[in-house]
């Protein structure tokens, strides 16, 4: 899949703009503060119906305006086309249509326009808090599995109910059993898919890391569950029951996929607290390449890829190597202040 054209109205610093893109590498080049990230953000909006920078759509609205609109024209492998229109109105929210049919449930849209995005904040996947790593898993897997996204949404709702019950808990163990039983249904679906995903990407992660670093370090990744035994739904329920005393004492749901984590290992050592800045960056780049491969094979379509500001500290040769590992069909959006870094034939959008 690739994005052929985008139109923006009152989005961030753009009042009215239209851009044509090419399959392959598209470079947004310009000084800081010109609106390169804004354009990358607009592309992200069309795939995820939200920003990668803010959770509030209002920030993306051009100052003192009431409404922004984004229109994207996508082409798929099979020749079909998709026009996505996103209209945001202040105090009213978003309306989305695809090929002139309104999208009623946004979660149904997720994954229909696959996208892999890397910005500076994503470096926190390897050295930040566990929630960054869970977000990484959720964004990728949600695009490839409806059951995953559905389970995730329902899991979050059940956790809210369970927390309320724990807040005023008075030995209603039958009620806690009820919510834990429901929780274990979604928890099972989610853990199963997270593990499958890791199993699928680890060989590629390791391969790409070696390619990028030119070294021999082995990279691997382990799923760290807050529950010991998670083979079946019944296991999960039993674990939750065994840990109930702790949850009752803490008055909050403390076990389950919302507390799980990943550990990246370099030659057996935990990357967090062990790897250098450079190693972290290489790890994340390798992870994103592995993510692209995963999406391709799961969705059967090239994802759109966005790289915002992440190549600034890398030299020309490393960047060349990175893009050499991407397929020619993959559409890439890169923002940079330094075009010299991209000597190859690229489509330039000057700011």
């Amino acid at each position, binding site marked *: 899949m690739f994005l052929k054209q985008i139109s923006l109205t009152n989005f961030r610093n753009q009042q009215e703009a239209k851009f044509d893109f090419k399959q392959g590498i598209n470079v947004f080049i310009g000084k800081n503060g010109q609106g390169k990230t804004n354009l990358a953000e607009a592309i992200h909006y069309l795939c995820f119906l939200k920003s990668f920078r803010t959770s509030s759509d209002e920030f993306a609205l051009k100052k003192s305006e009431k409404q922004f609109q984004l229109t994207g024209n996508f082409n798929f492998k099979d020749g079909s086309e998709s026009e996505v229109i996103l209209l945001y109105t202040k105090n009213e929210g978003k309306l989305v249509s695809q090929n002139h049919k309104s999208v009623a449930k946004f979660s149904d849209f997720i994954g229909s326009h696959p996208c892999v995005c890397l910005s500076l904040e994503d470096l926190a996947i390897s050295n930040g808090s566990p929630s960054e790593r869970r977000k990484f898993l959720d964004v990728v897997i949600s695009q490839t599995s409806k059951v995953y996204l559905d389970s995730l949404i329902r899991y979050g709702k059940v956790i809210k*109910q369970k927390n*309320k019950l724990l807040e005023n808990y008075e030995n209603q163990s039958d009620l806690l059993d009820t919510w834990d039983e429901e929780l274990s249904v979604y928890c099972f679906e989610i853990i199963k898919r997270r593990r499958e995903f890791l199993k699928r990407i680890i060989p590629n992660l390791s391969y790409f890391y070696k390619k990028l670093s030119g070294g021999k370090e082995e990279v691997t990744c382990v799923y760290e569950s807050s529950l010991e035994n998670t083979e079946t739904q019944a296991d999960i329920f039993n674990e939750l029951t065994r840990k109930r005393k702790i949850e009752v004492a803490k008055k909050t749901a403390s076990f389950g996929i919302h507390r799980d984590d990943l550990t990246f290992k370099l030659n057996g050592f935990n990357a967090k607290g062990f790897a250098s800045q450079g190693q972290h960056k290489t790890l994340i780049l390798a992870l994103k390449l592995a993510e692209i491969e995963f999406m391709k094979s799961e969705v059967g379509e090239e994802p759109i890829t966005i790289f915002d500001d992440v190549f600034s500290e890398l030299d020309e040769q490393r960047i060349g190597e990175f893009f050499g590992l991407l397929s020619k069909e993959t559409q890439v959006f890169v923002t940079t202040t330094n075009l010299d870094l991209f000597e190859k034939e690229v489509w330039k959008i000057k700011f």
Partner: protein
Amino acid sequence: MNYQINSLNLLIENLAKLPGIGKKTAQRLAFHVLKTEREEIAELAKALLAVKDNVKSCSVCFNITENDPCEICVNPRRDKTIICVVEEASNVITIERLNEYRGLYHILGGALSPLNGITPEKLKVRELLSRLSGEVEEIILATNPTIEGEATAIYLAKVLKNIGVKVTRIARGLPMGGDIEYADEVTLAKAIANRN
């Protein structure tokens, strides 16, 4: 706008309290009322009050009815060995429209939700259990496929387990996250027919 007509404003305010009706729609409806013949509006006002005065809940199944017990409960052709448990009376209308189900109903009056303070005591659970002494052989749990409906079904299944009555859950076959109101009727009919 400072220009106001009191009785019109009062109508707009009251219409805007209805679910799904915003200020703009309320205004449109109010102006429509102004333009309509007096007799027609009198009919509407009468119908609104009649619903409040004549419709009550069935003392057996808690369905809405004008006669107590309700038509379904007293109908000799309904199968009294099966009870279908739903959250709201509106769910009964959805299921009845399918012409597939011949048993009785039990309306819980909601679903479990700690966030909304809905405990089993706030639902007609005790009343359901008290109906089980007689000829009832099967309970169909047709609570909505929301997380609260699912929890309610799980809870009821636990409570009913020890009573020796057959318990089936139909909403699992429905799309996740939906509402029984919106479930397409074919899916729902299939779910009811295939519940074994």
